[in-house]
């Protein structure tokens, strides 16, 4: 049972990083320090995640569910989906 939580948190960390990087690359999520501050209040990651889910016709939850992560891991074009 000890290893199980570690595996989960590691996977979750990877997923968080996948989401962060994907939204920075393709949905203009800013990754500066101020941004981290603001994340405590209104979370731009949730907003950007909703934009991405809407673009791909997924359920717009603002949460990195399995299907959303699945789409993020697919090979794609490097040009952003939202204008810079």
């Amino acid at each position, binding site marked *: 049972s000890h290893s199980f939580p570690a595996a989960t948190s590691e996977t979750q960390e990877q997923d968080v990083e996948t989401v962060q990087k994907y939204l920075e*690359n*393709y949905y203009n999520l800013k990754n500066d320090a101020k941004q981290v501050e603001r994340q405590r209040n209104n979370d731009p990651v949730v907003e950007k995640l909703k934009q991405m889910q809407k*673009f*791909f*016709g*997924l*359920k*717009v939850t603002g949460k990195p*569910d*399995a*299907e*959303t992560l699945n*789409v993020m891991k*697919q*090979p*794609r*074009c*490097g*040009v952003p*989906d939202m*204008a*810079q």
Partner: protein
Amino acid sequence: FVLTQGSPRWEDTHLTYRIENYTPDLSRAAVDHAIEKAFQLWSSVSPLTFTKVSESQADIMISFVRGDHRDNSPFDGPGGNLAHAFQPGPHIGGDIHFDEDERWTNNFRDYNLYRVAAHELGHSLGLAHSTDIGALMYPNYIFSGDVQLSQDDISGIQAIYGPSQNPTQPIGPQTPQVCDSKLTFDAITTIRGELMFFKDRFYMRTNPFYPEAELNFISVFWPHLPNGLQAAYEVADRDEVRFFKGNKYWAVKGQDVLYGYPKYIYRSFGFPRTVKNIDAAVSDEDTGKTYFFVANKCWRYDEYKQSMDAGYPKMIAEDFPGIGSKVDAVFQKDGFFYFFHGKRQYKFDTKTKRILTLQKANSWFNC
């Protein structure tokens, strides 16, 4: 489709391109051919013309690079980000970069250079990403066997540069809209407890993660099946699904196409050669009898004896009164047959030979 913000475009529609370097994954001729075909796709639907040059600066410079290649958009190694391109304009404007950390191919294997080049060229000409999964300008890499501009792509490029000069305006395939009340189907089958609906190059299925129904290319599951399937049915106790097109059929187990297919329907089921294709098919799990619908007739095949039953073909109306004289698709669920013809769907009780309900064809999607 979406035009790049600010609607950048090339004022001069006669453009030049140059391939600055070549990937070692393919022969130079194969790279030249893939890139040339990609340009032809777009010139055939617009007033644009493209000329390949081998020296000096061209409007569209094409190169294979890896990692950080000093354009403020570094590549990320194998997978992920495959390529990018810059909107119309001077200097780096219009240029296309392919990630050399990918394997570039001219076939099904990842990643097909022609397919990616056709997409990136859309950016070089002023298009942004489309939300239409059937469009070449959709952001994710999907290779469905043939590379063609969808109507969405054609409408996009013509919104920037106007129509092509050839007398017959080219049109492209439209992606089915799952909630279009006029939606009709080519084939429908159960598969391991799910329902799969087929139309042109696409499958549709209900999926809890999608607000309506999931729609994607058939090639995502079965890359070697043809598009435009005509019938499909599941033999559940063999965990097998059979797909029909013309006088051939394929059998799959999950995502694997079984060895030795396609086969001819004459040899395997005993159809006469006058039968050129099957319109629809369904196998009754309770009896092991499979019904094939061909024009206004139906045939019954015994999956256990592996032979056609005597007394067939019959007129459809004899065994299935009320559903009309043509079937597009049919499947069995919870003991009932669901027949589809055009926009209509009939729920049919095979025991009482009665229609129980009449619905819209796309009633299974959460519209």
